[in-house]
């Protein structure tokens, strides 16, 4: 079953990339699958609608649950990061306040590898943020604020 859900998530990712105007070959390279499989996905073949439904439900979970589920389904952290980044429904902004002491807990906590330490302060690349807030949970000084970006 997990394999089917993984395929479902890949399907959703492929559709999103297609909507973004990517060619089949680019999508195939991005997701690490055959070009023919992508073609099948995008032509609605070889995949049960059930898997897609489950995958869609997972994507619509709160960001942390979506991340945790995806991590559980994909064995490769690199791959689950890719899927989360493509499929997540919102964008986030990470604000790190001056009270940061540079302990590096957030760097280790962030599954998306969004945060890096530079000159004793954490710096986040908001584009990568999945909104799971694992970092702000770890932060001993509550210096991390994650804001969801709303588009009007």
């Amino acid at each position, binding site marked *: 079953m997990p394999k089917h859900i993984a395929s479902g998530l890949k399907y959703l990712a492929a559709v999103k990339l297609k909507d973004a105007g990517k060619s089949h070959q680019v999508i195939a390279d991005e997701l690490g699958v055959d070009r023919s499989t992508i073609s099948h996905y995008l032509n609605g073949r070889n995949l049960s609608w059930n898997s897609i439904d489950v995958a869609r439900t997972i994507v619509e979970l709160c960001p942390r649950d979506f991340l945790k589920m995806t991590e559980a389904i994909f064995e490769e952290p690199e791959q689950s990061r890719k899927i989360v980044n493509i499929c997540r429904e919102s964008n986030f902004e990470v604000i790190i306040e001056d*009270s*940061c*002491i*540079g*302990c590096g807990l957030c760097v280790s906590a962030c599954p998306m590898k969004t945060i890096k330490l530079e000159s*004793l302060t954490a710096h986040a690349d908001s584009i990568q943020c999945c909104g799971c807030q694992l970092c702000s949970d*770890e932060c001993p000084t509550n210096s991390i604020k994650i804001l969801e970006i709303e588009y009007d």
Partner: protein
Amino acid sequence: MIRNLKEVKDNNFDITRSADEVRKLSFNDHVCLGCGICESTCPVEAITLNEIAIDSRNRLSNDIYFSGHEKIAQNFHDDFDVQRVTVNESKCVLCGMCSGLCPVDALVLTIDGVPIREIDAYPHYNAFSEIDDDECVYCKRCEVACPRDAIVIERVLPDRADLVTGEINVDDDECIYCGVCEELCPAEAIVVDKETGKESIVIDKDKCVYCLVCKKSCPTNAIKAICRACNYGEYDLDPSKAVVKGNSVIDSELCVFCGWCEGVCPTDAAKHKKPFKGSIEVDQDKCQACGACVDICGCNALAFPVSSGPGSRLDHIIAYDDYCVRCKACAKACPNDAITVKRTEIDHTPTNSATWTDALNAIKD
């Protein structure tokens, strides 16, 4: 949840967090001054300073009060089994602030094996101690004075024979071949043949020690000799002329930058710079001369006055301002609040972090 692992060994411990990077905080009790800077600056309140100074005062007998013992503190730490500092590993986030602000190397944070004092992003005190080998005469005065036993001076003594140099000659016209010099020579370096017609005198320069006994005993002043060793005249502290060579090592882990080495150095070889500038004062009205400060001071900057004889009461404490590193351990230990230590200036490398700058300012008076 990222957890820390604590490993305790004797009075030292390591706290490790292994995630993307391996962070390890090591505490070395024998290096710790007990100043409490770590306790007051820890952003997560994970550090507790143990008040062993107070216990130590209770352990001291009156004998010590009267005898003017000098290295009580060291002996006391050898047989006392409480760490000066406790770090709660479940609270510690291994940020390294305690390590960065520790004036000595008692708390050391390493990130992937690299101590933070070697990482530029972290602020460091501009403190140092060094011995210039070109100036050093290897007298070992600093080694004796160092309160932390941080200095090791190894000296290489020249061969004694190499130092025995001089000149010796016999004026054959003056010599009467009496043989007095031969009989007196302690080194058996002179052979005199007294047989008429074959008279001769031979001085073996390899054996001669230039003691000048022959010159002084010669009835006709036929022997001209000079000793180069004693010709140096008075004791000369020019390091370039010193015959003793060696090398000096300061254990940077143990050194507290107190400056005793520079204070006692007869040449300009030992140099130091303290992390803090400030002052220390003992209020003699409040001081009960209990000795708690003398115990805790890691720099021997506080002492009982030299005893003026058996039975003389050591009723006050002397503070050596020059040798105080302004760590404030004594002020914390003093039960009568008689000691005032001020840190007026902190010399450290810059940091971009606001919290670290605040923490550094917070330890300034």
